[in-house]
Structure formats: C-alpha cells, structure tokens
C-alpha cells in the first residue's frame, strides 16, 4: 500500500515543479551549465528521503512475497501435472502456464529449504529494522521542507515529531479504511482478528492525541515566542478566512479518535470504518491548513488572496484516487493478500516442541 501511495505521492511534486520536463533537475545530475544540485536545500534532501523510502518499501514488500510466490508457482505446476482442465477450457490451462512461469521467475527458485529460511529470516529482520527509522526520517525530512522555510506557521521546530505522529495516525486510519471492507468481503475474520482492530484503534488514539497536543503547542509557542508575524498566522488560522478548515481538521483529528477510549466503539467494525474515514478527511485538512493558510496571508497584505482549487487541482486529486485503487485492486487479484508463510509460522502446528494444543504452543 505504501508503494502505491508513494507512486501517487511522486506525481504531485512532479507537477509541482511546474515544468515537468525539468524534473530531472532534482536528481544529482549536472544541468546544461554543468552546475550540480545544491545540497543545502531540504528539497534536495527530500528527493533522497522519498526515493529511498519508496525503494526500500518495494524491496521489503517483494522479499516478503518470495516464499508466497513459490507457493503460487508450485500450485500452478501441480495443477498442470494433474491436468484437471476437463471442461474448464484452454484459457484455464493457459493461465496456469502463465502463472507457472511468471510467479516462477519472481520466486527466484525459492524451495523452502531450512538454509533458505535461516538467511531469509535474518534478512527480513534487518529490513524491518531498517524500515522503522526510515518511517521517522522520511516524515521528518518532508517536514524540513516546511520548517526550514521562513513563512510564519511553517517555521517551527515542532514539525518533525508532529509530522511523524500525523503520518502514523493517518497511515493507520487509511489501513483501517481499506482493511475493514476486505475483512468483510473475503471473510478474513480469523486472520484479522478483533485484537488487531483494537490495537490499531489504540494507536490511532495515541497518535491522534499527540497530533492534538502539537496543534495546541503550536498556538502556545506562537504566543510565547512573541513574534508578531507568527502570532498573526495562528490567530488567522483559528479565526480567519480558513477557520472552517481548521475546525474541520481539529474535530476530525483530535475529537474523533477520543471515541476509541471505549471498547464498545472499537468492537463496532462499521463505526470504526466511518471514524477511519473521518481521520483521512481530517489529515487531508491538516495539510490544507498548513499549506494554504500560511501562503494565502503572507507578509505583504497586498499579495493576500483566497485560494480555491481549480478544476485541474481537483481532477489531479481524484486521479490519484483512481491510480491508487487500480494498483491496489490489481494487487489483491494477482498477489497474496495475506502473507501465507507468516500465517503458517504462528500456527500451533508449526511449533517444533510438540505443544500443539489449544494453548498455542507456549513453552
């Protein structure tokens, strides 16, 4: 999912450059005058942060699928050997030939050997370890794009932790939005249990509260810092022309997750889904508030204005919905939705010490 989101996320800066055909200026390549990009700019750091994040996510995702691709390959080969295509037509057989080779190529000859698993588990552990600081760094560096600017409302040191908490918050919200319908449609209630949903709700509650704290702290610092431009930016945010967006954001991001204190709410899947939509909306408004309010009313009152999206803005935005959905649905159709090997690993029957009873094999 991250990958598809990064694909979408890649599009916005690309168009943001204004002249898309100059996007390669971002990469560490010399331009026509042999001048290199300069690395004092957070935008250049961001190029590295986002591309590393995208690449490592792809590697992690692919590596997690290698054993499962091996399973899909072996199933296709077994069906081809048995040859049970009576009445199913040539297409079914053709699909299995296709599966045998395509999944086979990407499974890289994985054959479930003990030796494979030994190295695989180590590599998986390390990749998981590498991805964790990457989550922190990518959002921190994105926040530098704002925090290193001089614009009031952007120029704050609280941005890195605030963006990381917001990212985890909206990420869990988005996963809930996608996961709950999948669980209902495919009947995955034994794989995605109530305990998982409970824990995700609690993380939303925790990070949502951190985000709420950051909102309040921004106001406090704007007053305590005694910078007239900064305090204007925040009074304008709360009471100016965009206050409707601010209250929308505050209600969705800070008040909605507070309902997750109640286990009755966490147990109601439909309600959790609706609330996860509120979280997504709230986080969209957070970006809107941060970006637009500071830019619409900057230092010079003569350049003030009221931003409303053009038709191109709106269509680009909805286009990313479409792009994401297509990639996500193709993934569901062609690749394992749940990691098969990981599910097997936690089954009681996988325990080598023979405690495979209802206690779950603890020793």
């Amino acid at each position, binding site marked *: 999912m991250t990958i598809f989101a990064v694909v979408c996320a890649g599009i916005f800066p690309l168009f943001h450059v204004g002249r898309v055909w100059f996007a390669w200026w971002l990469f*560490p390549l*010399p331009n026509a005058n*042999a*001048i*290199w990009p*300069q*690395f*004092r700019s*957070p935008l*250049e*750091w961001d190029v*590295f*942060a986002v591309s*590393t994040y995208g690449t*490592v996510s792809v*590697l*992690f995702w*692919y*590596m997690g699928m290698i*054993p499962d691709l*091996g*399973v899909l390959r*072996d*199933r296709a*080969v*077994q069906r081809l*050997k048995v040859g049970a295509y009576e009445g199913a037509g040539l297409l079914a057989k053709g699909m299995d030939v296709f599966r045998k080779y395509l999944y*086979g*190529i990407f499974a*890289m*000859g994985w*054959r*479930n*050997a*003990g*030796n*494979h*698993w*030994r*190295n*695989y*588990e*180590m*590599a998986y552990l*390390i990749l998981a370890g*590498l991805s964790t600081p990457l989550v922190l*760094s990518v959002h921190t560096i994105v926040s*530098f794009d704002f925090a290193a600017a001089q614009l009031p409302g952007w120029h704050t040191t609280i941005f890195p932790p605030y963006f990381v908490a917001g990212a985890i918050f909206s990420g869990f919200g988005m996963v809930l939005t996608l996961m709950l319908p999948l669980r209902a449609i495919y009947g995955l209630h034994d794989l995605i249990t109530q305990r998982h949903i409970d824990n995700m709700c609690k993380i939303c509650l925790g990070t949502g509260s951190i985000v709420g704290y950051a909102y309040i702290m921004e106001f406090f610092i704007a007053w305590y810092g005694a910078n007239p431009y900064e305090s204007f930016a925040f009074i304008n945010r709360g009471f100016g022309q965009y206050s409707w967006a601010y209250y929308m954001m505050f209600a969705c991001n800070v008040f909605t997750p507070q309902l997750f204190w109640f286990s009755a709410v966490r147990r109601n899947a439909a309600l959790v889904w609706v609330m996860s939509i509120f979280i997504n909306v709230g986080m969209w408004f957070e970006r809107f508030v941060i970006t637009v309010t500071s830019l619409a009313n900057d230092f010079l009152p003569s350049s003030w204005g009221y931003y409303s999206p053009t038709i191109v803005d709106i269509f680009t935005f909805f286009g990313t919905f479409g792009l994401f959905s297509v990639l996500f649905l193709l993934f569901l159709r062609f690749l394992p939705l749940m990691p*098969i*090997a990981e599910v*097997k*690993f936690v*089954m009681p*029957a*996988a*325990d*080598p*010490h*023979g405690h*495979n009873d209802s206690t779950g094999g603890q020793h």
Partner: protein
Amino acid sequence: MSETHGIIASFADTPSFYHAAEKVRDAGYTKWDTYSSFPVHGMPEAQGQPRSKVPVFTFVGGITGFTVGTLIVWFMNYFDYPLIVGGKPFFSPVFPFPVMYELTILLAAFGTLGGMFITNLLPQHYNPLFNSDAFLEVSGDRLVIAIESRDPKFDPEATRRFLAEIGGTDIEEVSN
C-alpha cells in the same frame, strides 16, 4: 538423466521433523537440507548451521552508502562546481546528513536483499527436487528432509534405511 540427485523423506508433524533433523546432523551428513513452508523455530541449530551471514552484506552496503552520500555532496558542491548558497560552507558533514543517512539505509537494504540471494544461492530456477510430485507439496503442508547424492556419506541403500529409521515416510529417490 536417471542419475540420482538424492533421497527425500516426509515427516508427519513438526516435532518429529525437528528431531529427525537433529539425527541427520548427528549422523554426519553434510549435503542435506530440511524443507518446510514456514521457518521452524530452532531449526538452524537442529541442522547444525551457523548464524546467517546476511548482516555482513548489510554492513558493507551501509558503509558504502554512507561513503557515497558524503562523496557526492563533497564532489558536487565543493570540488567540481563550488556554488555559494545562503553564505553556507561548500561542504560540511552537517547539512548533507539527511542525504548520507538515506543512502546508508538504501544501500544497506539492497545489501540485505542481495545478501539473502547470495547466501541462498538464488536465483536458481531449476532444482532436480522439483521433479518430485511429493516435493511440490512442501509449499502446502509437507515436511521433507532431502539428502543429496553428492554427500560423501551417501549410499543409496544405507541412506534410505537411515531415513526410514528416523521416522521418514514416502521415501523417494529423486533423479536429476
């Protein structure tokens, strides 16, 4: 064509599979492996395998990434085309730290995946074991131990008997 690649035996459940692996190890075989669709806890020890070498590749990748990150910033902004921006120094280890950090992680991740492939001798799209119908069921729920014919202790009769003794069923010779 009909040369023997090895002998495979199946086991009923994870505990007997695990203990059989210990017995194969103790019998002194070297060219053999266990096959299961999930990693078994403690199996590397039962097989007598050392700790995985993957972290070495990760470390080398990370060091390379850090060095490359430092060098590209130094080369581009200090050495090849110095450009004054905001009165800041041409090079300092501080401001490009995000770039160095990201490249460390990026190349460490590539090192990890590449290390997994190298230590596992992958990609290897053909292996004689896949000729066996029983072996294809390993990715389902079958648990298999295979002893290869290139093992110095391998003997078609004795190895077959040994695998039966340690509880193996469906014993089958796999040809190349």
